């Protein structure tokens, strides 16, 4: 029987109490314990970015994070990136620019992109490419993803003025 531990944290703006196995990853907690399947398992070793979430304002690979370490933190997943003007602009840009094909990498990329834009409102294509270097995509060749993120940053600039 694996040791279990109770944690309390904020998930997508809502306070949660969860009991997790101590060795469990944050990714497994989100998908299998809480049932939020938007965050994806891509590799389990922090190389592909499909499991990207935001913890206390910074993105990280949830497959590398221990679930118990979520205790007391603010966690945002792809499901939490809705209903906010910036997130909507980003999603509209992904759709309009053809940045989605099979879509499996898309949640991780959306989360990483929203973090990138939150901290660097003015980005060019080169900065975006570096910013998403930890997110693998096999379908699109990245070009339209980069265009979508750059375009979303301009929308935000426009909205901010």
């Amino acid at each position: 029987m694996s040791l279990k531990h109770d944690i309390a944290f904020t998930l997508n703006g809502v306070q949660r109490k969860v009991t997790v196995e101590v060795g469990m990853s944050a990714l497994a907690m989100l998908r299998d314990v809480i049932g939020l399947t938007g965050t994806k398992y891509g590799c389990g070793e922090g190389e592909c970015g499909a499991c990207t979430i935001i913890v206390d304002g910074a993105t990280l690979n949830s497959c590398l994070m221990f679930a118990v370490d979520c205790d007391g933190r603010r966690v945002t997943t792809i499901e939490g990136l809705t209903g906010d003007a910036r997130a909507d602009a980003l999603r509209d840009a992904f759709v309009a620019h053809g940045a989605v094909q099979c879509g499996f990498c898309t949640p991780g990329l959306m989360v990483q992109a929203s973090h990138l834009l939150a901290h660097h409102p003015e980005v060019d294509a080169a900065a975006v490419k570096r910013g998403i270097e930890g997110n693998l995509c096999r379908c699109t060749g990245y070009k339209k993803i980069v265009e979508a993120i750059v375009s979303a940053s301009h929308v935000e600039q426009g909205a901010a003025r």
Partner: protein
Amino acid sequence: MKVADRPAAIAPDTLIGKRIPKMDAPEKASGKTRYIHDINLPGQLHAKILRSARVHARIVRIDTSAARRLPGVHVVLTAADLPDQRPIGVAKDHLPLKRDRVRSQRDEIAAVAADSEEIAEQALRLIKVDYEDLPVVSNALDAIKPDAVLIHPEPHGADGSHLHLKPGVPIAFAGKKDNIAMRFDYAHGDVVQGESQSDVVIEDTFKLHYVTHCCMGVSGVIADFDASGNLLMYSNTQVPFLHKREFAEYLNMDPARIRIVQPPIGGGFGSKLDIYPFEVICVFLARAARRPVKLVFSREEEFLASPTRQPVLLTLRSGCRRDGTLTFRQVHTLHDNGAYTSWGATTPFVMMQTFSSLYRVPHCEYHTTAVYTNNPYAGSFRGYGNLQATFAVEAHMDKLAEAIGMDPLEFRLKNAQVPGEVTGQGMSFKSCGFQDCLKTAAARSDYQRKRRECVAARDKSGPIKRGIGIASMLHVGGGAKIYPSDGCGTILKIDDFAHVTLITGASEIGQGSETVLSQLVCEELGLPISSVTVVNNDTDITPWDVGVHASRTTFIAGNSAIGAAKKAKAKILAAAAKKFECAEGDLTLRGGHIVRAASGEPLIDLARLMRSLHFSDKAELVMTTFYYEPPSQHQDKGFKGDVSAAYAWATQVVEVEVDTDTGIVKMTRVTGAHDVGRVLNRLGIEGQIEGGVVMGQGYALTENLMIEEGRMRNPSFRDYKLVTAPEIPEIDVSFIESMDGEGPQGAKGVGEAPAICIAAATANAIENATGVRIYELPFTPEKVYRALHGSAEKLYWKPWKPE
């Protein structure tokens, strides 16, 4: 709609060529789409497979007793529990659960269904297997030696002699006398004559490596038998109807009682075209457990157990005349078939098309020998042998041009076919934009001038050398008639609100087929794209389609959808003509209305007409069907025939920077001109091309599945390098619209094309930059460095085929 609101006239408009966002993109970008990994059935069990600890060994004993006793384990299966297992795969040479011996690292020995993945994994660790090692054959060249260890030996009789079972018994039971899995021999013309007419003859060996699909979503399957014994499978197969029939055979079931539902897929690229052991094993577990069973790979397992691209060792001999006309090509290839046979062994079907018909070749001979080894087996992978063949052909195009002192672009233009030509293999190029592809890509990239400048700059100081290289490709663009039918069925209905339901046999694997099909239907019916719901993922509902392969979906499913839409349109216009007392030919559908064709004057909106049809004395709904079979031929026994209804071309020009101090090759720019017949969804087709270019970049520069003595050394993203965002080149895409007569709105297939000639062009670019030609992929920094600094031996394989 009130009479006062109706527009005075509706102008013609078109969806063709527009940028149309993918219909499922908003769901996917919200994280709401449920892939197979996200689907959980009530009461489901989790399955894991025990794979071989040895590469080649006899299985002496499997002890599952401790695993069976573990709390939470419901079923443990080995071959001993399945005495009537049937062989699967292209050559029927493997059983899902291995019986007497293991032949590769991925071989499946036992399977467990348990309450959780953790319990299933723990159970695997409790299974004890005793092996008796056998010598490992890890090199195809060793496998063809006369004294080679046999991978599939014939069974022994009681007296120890080999039993030669009668023909027709599958290889899994009958074995083989040697390690030769398959052979392909093709010829048109007479290469001896061709060689005698040549002023220049060159011969080189090329070596193409193992790479793998790396779909971002790992493989998975869910199997569930209902109370009556009907089977429901959630599967990401690209060929659901073929799967249905084959699973029925493996399970000794009536195919009518098997239903396959396809959840959204996390990438395909050809990886899901065969039946793999894990799928059959999952069904066996579900049958034994009488519970739904879900089996999902880990990423490491995905690397270990998935089919690869077909590795190829080939020697090409080519010739031309001094005036620049090609004379002959003679090719021998050795395919490492791996331990079992999947679609990789049939890549010669495609490879010979390139050798025989990419540029005009009067004489051609092609031989492939596929041999069993203890390596992983190869499957179908975007391009299907064409990357390998084009790599060799386009290297020789540059070398021949240089040998006769001709500009490499002029040399290619001289030999590039034009519309109306029929090749030696019988392929009829009705629409053909080859010449335009070459001219456009070369002009936009300033190929000729840059090429000369790079040669001149080779001797200048500084470690960074620039180079530019060109290559073209030919691929089927209108399906490929390899099955009895290459067709696709459509059922279409229009409801009382002018909403269309398009039920198509064609699967969506992320390439955007559902959006293109909707676009074609809306173009016929004069409706906005939001009017369509596509149903394409349930074999109980959708009509037959052979599957997603050979870049066929837009062409064949597209024509099928148009056929159904045209029938609906005819029915609607006939009813409207009657109602408005005019000729059918005077009317058309536009902007959601029936309008007078000449003036655009709207007569009635479509929804209203639908309701008036429905709620009348002779009630009628609009429901139509259409099955489209392309006018292609089956190849004859000599592989000759017009196997596709259309063919597609592309020319790609690749620019590189080579750092001669490290060997690092940076791909800076790719300029491509693509003969696609006609652009349908501009956004979708660009996305396919950009993705294919980057996949080609990975094949050329970064991806390398390292197999040593049958073991995979790098089954992880850490050490198997996919291209990341900062590495991509500038990508310039042009379209040549050759307007194919048979294609839907003139379009041809393009899914595989953009990956095909990137490595070939890169080889030419590196040669332009450094003066050194490399004949083996991938162009990793170390390989390039060794080639530049004289520490690499040029490989030569003496052309060989079995007697």
